[in-house]
């Protein structure tokens, strides 16, 4: 059997069908008028489609979705107030994009600017943004149990900050909406056709059977494209109102202002240990900058981070406060890792601090705290024996010799994939062809390759007989989405379950199974393969850097030792690891969304936002644990692992070469000026 290519040929021919490539007859182009102020009262809005007509809010769906309905929920349009620079106030429509841009000038908005709340500390000290609340706290929870260890031999405290970063897929957000009077059809760049449908149906109060969402070729997601956005609702509403198709494509500047970014999290940590390096307990406070509105990742993330803060270590006492706060910035969203990198950063920074305090080797300290069997931490983090894994990782990454030069940093972590509630799959066999739909929508991860491989393994057919179909809510009745390192695990399990159902059906009917019987008959089988519990896995990274006198860090090498279960497609695995590592490197060295104190965006372009180029890519050494999950196809999670491990390993390496304690990302050159040893 010929090896299936990991990338589709039509994409290198320029024949992709991304959403901006879709042209429908009589189509309108939408442009959005956005608030120039981070916080203002709106005295009046005249012109365009605005909130005087289209009322209501944006329902939270997808990764980290939460239910809410109040003053603090994001409205479709800012009508009486706006709470971040970039918030939509009106939309205009024209026959082409240039004319739509011109029309923006026809909208008149009367603002009364107010003093914005622009950071976590300000949020905690300034009067509330929302008059219905007493404070700017969006959510406040505790994980673990109170304990008393103030007399422990070693007590260390520190405070960390991961600044906000934009998701920045090279294809921005966009959709085409079209209505024939009864049915609304949406083509969209997305990680989850089903979440988009749920959000449109819920927010615009439509009947589910009257909405169809189809995934266009999707130019990267990284968390951005799983959830609902106000622009989608505006375009959908306009298509129904004007009875013409409506296209909206985000500009990069809009992306920087109004697409939900990730990170933006403070961690205050207190570690209690004995002098042999055994961690006795951890106390902490995680504060997430949720941004202007409640609902979704900003509200969800703090508790999720607090859960993971104990890392792959046997820590018997833990008590962590998890807070999210309101500020006058675009709401936080999921960005690759979505809480996992922050948790690892906080804990790994403390482990390094403890190692330095005790003058111990950081690897030895980690081994001392690793577990010899499965463990569940007081905050709720579950993982398998971490000690044998770390021992193997240190050998595979050649820690002993690489750490000698004094420019390497180590990080160990637990990857918590979004395992529950499972995923759906439908397989249709007809006319000697096998067609497959999967609930999670690929946006560059080559899900089609493993889908075909698993079906071919289960059913003994050639991959050439299998078609992988795009996300389409009319073709697949339910589905979750592609995020949280989940699809190879839960999507893979769903595929295998449906393939086996078909096989059983054939065996029952014909007394035996053969690929010929499969292809010469017709089948249409759907299953939502439910998953309970967790599928957490372990990972480790080692990074080596050099520093010059101008404070510029060059990353020399990144080593990986990950447990991803059975690798389903090595090209894609390598691509996920390296792509994720460069995002992790970006977060560590250059990426940031920055605002001035009065709330104006300082990073309006993708270059200002610090996305890495090809120029400074290090060497990579990728090793995988020889392992299988308990699922029939053996997969575990991967996609987010490098964004978790790489920043923590890199900052330690930077700390070693500069001699300066690193507490935040990005670590910019000016912070390291003249520190070369």
């Amino acid at each position: 059997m010929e090896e299936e290519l990991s990338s589709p040929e039509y994409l290198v021919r320029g024949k992709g069908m991304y959403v901006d490539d879709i042209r429908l007859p009589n189509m309108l182009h939408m442009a959005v008028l956005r608030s120039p102020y981070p916080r203002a009262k709106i005295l009046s809005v005249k012109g365009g489609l605005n909130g005087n007509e289209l009322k209501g809010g944006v329902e939270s769906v997808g990764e980290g979705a939460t239910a809410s309905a109040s003053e603090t929920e994001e409205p479709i349009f800012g009508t009486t107030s706006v709470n971040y620079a970039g918030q939509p106030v009106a939309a205009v429509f024209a026959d082409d994009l240039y004319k739509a841009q011109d029309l923006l000038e026809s909208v008149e908005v009367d603002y009364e600017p107010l003093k914005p709340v622009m950071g976590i500390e300000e949020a905690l000290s300034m009067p509330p943004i929302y008059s219905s609340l007493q404070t700017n706290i969006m959510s406040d929870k505790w994980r673990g149990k109170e304990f008393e260890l103030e007399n422990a031999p070693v007590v260390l405290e520190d405070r960390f900050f991961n600044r906000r970063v934009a998701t920045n897929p090279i294809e921005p957000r966009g959709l085409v909406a079209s209505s024939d009077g009864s049915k609304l059809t949406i083509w969209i760049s997305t990680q989850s056709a089903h979440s988009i449908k749920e959000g449109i149906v819920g927010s615009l109060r439509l009947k589910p059977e009257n909405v169809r969402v189809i995934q266009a070729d999707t130019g990267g997601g990284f968390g951005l494209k799983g959830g609902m956005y106000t622009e989608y609702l505006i375009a959908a509403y306009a298509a129904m109102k004007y009875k013409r198709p409506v296209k909206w494509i985000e500009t990069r500047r809009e992306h920087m202002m109004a697409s939900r970014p990730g990170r933006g999290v403070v961690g205050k940590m207190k570690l209690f240990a004995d002098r042999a390096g055994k961690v006795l307990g951890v106390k902490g406070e995680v504060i997430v900058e949720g941004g202007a509105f409640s609902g979704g990742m900003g509200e969800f993330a703090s508790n999720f981070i607090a859960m993971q803060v104990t890392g792959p270590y046997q820590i018997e006492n833990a008590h962590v406060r998890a807070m999210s706060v309101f500020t006058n910035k675009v709401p936080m969203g999921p960005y690759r890792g979505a809480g996992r990198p922050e948790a690892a950063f906080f804990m790994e920074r403390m482990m390094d601090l403890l190692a330095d305090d005790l003058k111990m080797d950081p690897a030895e300290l980690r081994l001392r705290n690793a577990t010899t069997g499965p463990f569940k931490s007081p905050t709720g983090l579950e993982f398998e024996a971490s000690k044998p894994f770390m021992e193997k990782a240190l050998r595979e990454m050649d820690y002993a010799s690489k750490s000698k030069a004094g420019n390497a940093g180590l990080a160990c972590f637990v990857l918590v994939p979004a395992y529950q509630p499972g995923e759906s799959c439908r397989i249709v066999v007809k006319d000697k062809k096998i067609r497959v739909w999967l609930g999670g929508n690929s946006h560059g991860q080559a899900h089609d390759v493993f889908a075909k491989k698993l079906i071919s393994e289960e059913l003994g057919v050639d991959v050439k007989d299998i078609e992988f179909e795009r996300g389409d809510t009319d073709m697949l009745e339910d589905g979750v989405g592609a995020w949280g390192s989940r699809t190879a695990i839960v999507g893979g399990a769903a595929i295998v379950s449906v393939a086996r159902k078909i096989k059983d059906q054939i065996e029952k009917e014909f007394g035996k199974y053969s690929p010929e019987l499969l292809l010469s008959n017709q089948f249409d089988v759907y299953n939502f393969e439910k998953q309970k519990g967790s599928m957490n896995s372990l990972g480790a990274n080692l990074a080596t850097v050099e520093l010059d006198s101008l404070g510029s860090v060059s990353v020399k090498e990144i080593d990986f030792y990950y447990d991803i279960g059975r690798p389903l497609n090595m090209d894609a695995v390598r691509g996920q690891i390296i792509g994720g590592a460069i995002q992790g490197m970006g977060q560590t060295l250059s990426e940031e969304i920055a605002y001035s104190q009065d709330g104006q965006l300082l990073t309006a372009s993708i270059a200002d936002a610090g996305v890495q180029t090809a120029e400074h890519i290090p060497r990579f050494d990728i090793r995988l644990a020889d392992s299988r999950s308990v699922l029939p196809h053996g997969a575990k999670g991967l996609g987010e692992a490098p964004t978790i491990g790489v920043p923590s390993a890199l900052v330690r390496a930077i700390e070693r070469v500069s001699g300066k304690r690193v507490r935040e990302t990005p670590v910019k050159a000016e912070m390291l000026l003249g520190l070369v040893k």
Partner: protein
Amino acid sequence: MGTTRVEIEVNGEAKSAEVESRMLLVHFLRDVAGLTGTHIGCDSTNCGACTVLLDGKAVKSCTVLAAQASGRKITTVEGLSANGKLHPVQKAFLDKHGLQCGFCTPGMIMSTVWLLSFNPKPTEQEIRRYISGNLCRCTGYQDIIESVKRASDSMTGGR
């Protein structure tokens, strides 16, 4: 808003239209010529997704007005393959997994075609420097660099 008559040879075919004078070349290619393989990823000339060849030389088509390209020759990604057969650079990107989502790919491929046209055997450092005007958020670039090396090998017969 004023209009201008432009006539551009795109992939060997003459395309002419009366367009708004402010129309960018990238919009002419996508909306007038219907060639959507040239992508738009930014509004600040940073991403390179819109890279095409103008008289054989790589340009970011979002920085050129359609009117400025009038009377000149453009090659887009759709114009690379001959009789349906992939150009060696396209083939190399497929073979070496030089793409994930594929959105940056046409621009990367066009930059590579241009690089190899004047420097058939670039060093790794030259490749990196050269494609650093094209952003990719998915691959981490390593497999793109491998793709460029593969293309160079296959176009020079590995010499």
